[in-house]
């Protein structure tokens, strides 16, 4: 018995989970501090959260080119995890920056908000560093449960309630699928370790076509695809995105999506490499379906939050193209794309945070009439984000799409790339429409704009710098993305 404990302790390497550990400690500390703070004073909580994220970033970067493995091969802080960790931290940081004034405006200055963001970020990190299906599952749950609460944060609002409940019920359902898939794969391979499953399958090629293996893969993909918001598991996205508080929506569109991609990539590329022909044909179809559904439905939206929700479905489709390509360019393209998407989408949401009045009544296209002239800075910022989401050079969105489609072309999926760019062409219409309303339409009368807030402005500036940096000189980050894949 003593030997077992010793053995376990030897395998424990806290360095491997240090980033999420730091985040959780900070989160709990903030929870405690909140008890002693007067209700409504949340600025300190948001400041500490930012510090927490910075510290975590420093800690996480220790794993770059210095991989740490721990907990008997359940967790790895390798380049892959570190790259994704940076994306999560960025998403969380931008979200927190835009939250403080927003929460006060909406009358929900709740200190617990920040720890919840930190916890869900920690969950995302487990998903990216998880090398065992159980760790990934745990990460997914930690991530999701925090988000269920955050989505339904405005408990006196019907929409927010609906968002929370819908996300929770459907999320729980999809987790069920995931768990069932894990169970089946365990049944096949006798292990939940991703690498071991891969080894088992390559040693037993007969098991690859086994219905149980295929069913396990399919069920697991449902769990991940739900989080990615890929069709046909995207139905929850628009309602939840619209109902949740805007900064939470912003976080949901980037953080969990990147986390699910991280897990999906590690499991599929490392664990289920043997089934590559199966999952490429599956994802090939789903990528096309996701792009088309997302883009075509986004055209009909008049609420900007809802439009961005559908657009995020479409972007999940683009990123899936990189996974279908399954070559180095495409896969590292996904990493790059997730980072680019975090910058441009959170930037767009930060503009929405500033633009919407109390109760977010301003977020219709009509409400944006003349916005560009009334608020020049926000107008230009929104234009840059829209152009980037369209994929127009020289922005991050263009670079990201370029790498992903280049990956597809390299692997011979020319038609997939063509369908992808045609979808981009469809997306031009609804992104351009935002610019049309901002600049080409006259402002409505008797219209009051909310004042600017430092936090949100800072997050917008960071996002602009990120979008332009990744667009004009993407070399350095792309090089890192390249080092980050297995």
């Amino acid at each position, binding site marked *: 018995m003593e030997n077992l404990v010793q053995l376990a302790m030897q395998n424990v390497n806290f360095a491997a989970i240090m980033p999420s550990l730091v985040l959780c400690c900070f989160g709990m500390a903030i929870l405690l501090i909140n008890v002693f703070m007067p209700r409504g004073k949340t600025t300190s909580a948001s400041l500490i959260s930012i510090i927490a994220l910075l510290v975590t970033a420093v800690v996480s970067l220790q794993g770059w080119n210095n991989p740490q493995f721990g907990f008997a091969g359940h967790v790895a802080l390798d380049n892959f995890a570190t790259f994704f960790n940076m994306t999560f931290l960025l998403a969380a940081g931008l979200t927190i920056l835009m939250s403080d004034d927003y929460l006060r405006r909406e009358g929900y200055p709740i200190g617990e908000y920040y720890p919840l963001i930190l916890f869900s970020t920690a969950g995302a990190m487990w998903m990216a560093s998880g090398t065992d299906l159980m760790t990934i599952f745990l990460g997914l749950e930690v991530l999701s449960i925090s988000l269920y609460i955050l989505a339904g944060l405005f408990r006196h609002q019907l929409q927010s309630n609906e968002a929370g409940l819908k996300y929770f019920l459907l999320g729980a359902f999809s987790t069920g699928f995931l768990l069932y898939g894990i169970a089946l794969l365990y049944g096949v391979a006798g292990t939940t370790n991703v690498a071991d499953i891969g080894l088992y399958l390559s040693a037993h090629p007969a098991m690859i076509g086994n219905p149980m293996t295929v069913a396990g893969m399919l069920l697991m993909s449902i769990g991940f695809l739900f989080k990615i918001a890929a069709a046909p598991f995207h139905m929850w996205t628009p309602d939840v995105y619209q109902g949740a508080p805007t900064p939470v929506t912003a976080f949901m569109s980037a953080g969990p999506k990147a986390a699910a991609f991280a897990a999906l990539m590690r499991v599929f590329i490392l664990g289920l490499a043997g089934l590559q022909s199966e999952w490429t044909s599956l994802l090939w179809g789903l990528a096309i379906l996701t792009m088309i559904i997302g883009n075509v439905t986004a055209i009909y939206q008049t609420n900007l939050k809802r439009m961005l929700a559908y657009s995020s479905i479409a972007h999940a489709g683009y990123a899936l193209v990189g996974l279908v390509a399954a070559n*180095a*360019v495409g896969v*590292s393209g996904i990493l790059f794309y997730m980072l680019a998407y975090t910058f441009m989408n959170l930037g767009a949401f930060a503009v929405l945070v500033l633009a919407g009045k109390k109760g977010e009544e301003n977020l219709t296209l009509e409400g944006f009439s003349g916005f560009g*002239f009334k608020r020049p800075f926000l107008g230009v910022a929104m234009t840059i984000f829209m*152009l980037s989401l369209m994929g*127009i*050079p*020289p922005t991050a969105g*263009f670079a990201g799409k*370029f*790498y992903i*489609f*280049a990956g597809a*072309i*390299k692997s011979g999926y*020319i038609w997939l*790339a*063509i369908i992808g*760019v*045609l979808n*981009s*062409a469809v997306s*031009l*219409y609804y992104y*351009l*429409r935002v*610019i*049309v309303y901002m*600049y*080409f*339409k006259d402002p409505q009368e008797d219209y009051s704009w909310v004042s600017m807030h430092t936090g949100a402005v800072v997050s917008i500036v960071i996002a602009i710098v990120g979008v332009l940096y990744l667009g004009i*000189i*993407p*070399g350095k980050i*792309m*090089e890192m993305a*390249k080092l980050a894949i297995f």
Partner: protein
Amino acid sequence: MSEHLLSLMTFFPLLGMIVILFIPRENDGVLKGLTFVITLITFFISLPLAFDDVFKTSGGMHYTEFVKWISIGDYFQMNYNLGVDGISLWLVLLTTFIMPIAVLSTWQAVEKNTKGFMALLLLLETAMLGAFLALDLFLFYVFWELMLIPMYFLIGIWGGKRRIYSAIKFFIYTAVGSLLMLVAIIFVYYYALKSGQPFEQGFSISHFYQLNIPAAYQTWLFLAFAFSFAIKVPMFPVHTWLPDAHTDAPTAGSVILAAIMLKMGTYGYVRFAMPLFPEALHQFTPFLATLAVIGIIYGALVAMVQEDVKRLVAYSSVSHLGFVMLGVFALNIQGMSGGMIQMINHGISTGALFLIVGFIYERRHTRLITDFGGLAKQMPVFTTIFMIAMLSSIGLPGTNGFVGEFLIMVGAFEGELRWFTIVAASGVIFAAVYMLWMFQRVMFGELKNPANQKLKDLSVREVVLMLPLLLFIFWIGVYPNTFFEKMNPALDQLINQIKGKQQVAVVETINPVQHKID
């Protein structure tokens, strides 16, 4: 200095734009004046190119700049690679030449948000120059797409009645084409890498020229490129964005669109689509020439029935660019140099016509032919200038238009496009019909409309901005050799290169067995 001349020229307007952004929006005059000075300086920066005799002797690229830009391990290498040869030389100069004129035309036309307008004009100039000078396909694509953004805003914010519809249509049409081209560009890149091109060369077109892409690939790649450029030209039947965009754009926008941006399409054919995929070009020449001829006739016929002068000029562009394409597809020195000079001519003549339409629109806020009549009595200077521009657009001997159309016809007739030429020639007659008829209805007859009886003749500023255009109308008309002597070495080289590859391909198809034995 001279080794960075092209970069300086390309990015000087961008620097100017940044300066403009810091000037308070109320200073209307300062903003316009400064923009004019910036574009004028850009023109002076580009002038040494016009006087450099190296283009007369060598058809290769000059003033080249090469800097590694994006390096991603063994995935990609994109380079910042600029250069100019006899083909792009005059288009670059046309750009720097037209821009100050376009800025001058805004003096009274642009009243709201002058700051934004000027900033966008300067951004547009950088993008256009970059696209003409880029020798790296990726870099070209970046500039090519960048061009869309300022023009989209120029039409959408400062445009006419249906500006929103036209702006969106313009953007989506052009972007759809270029996205397909992007797929083709990436494909060519991977093909080049596979066939042993040095990785450091990136998307450099000089290396892509050396490729021997199999005919089956060429067909698709050529279609992707050709479609993208056909939209920009615009060729029938993807021309429908052009009348809308032209009609609704502000005067400066229409001038730039007609004079420079449309040339991006024809230039794209000459620089990329044709030399990269010579066999596919051979295969598609009859088809494309047919479209060009349809464009000539169709554009002219539709122009004839227009009631709006600006729309008439816009449709005449469809017709004129059909001529340019016909000349280019002739693939001999007469046809191609005719096509090239006609690109410049169209920039000057149609640019002038759009400015003229702008002058009367500023005075009367209408462009309907029926609202005018008898203006000649009221505005003699205007009439003279209008007449010269119109005659040059028709192609009267002694003006620039004649030289271009004549060479195109000769080239196409001598080449394989004999029958096309015969049909196209009737387009010249139609052009005379619609232009003269319009001119007669607008300028002659009785001065009935009381609103027209108080019209003022052109101001000094307006005459001054037209003079350089008139000068070139006659210069090219009388002594076009100034332009040909610097253009032809590059065109010769290009034609030899394309024809050489086509012949190799023909030999291979005739003697497949012999080829195998080798």
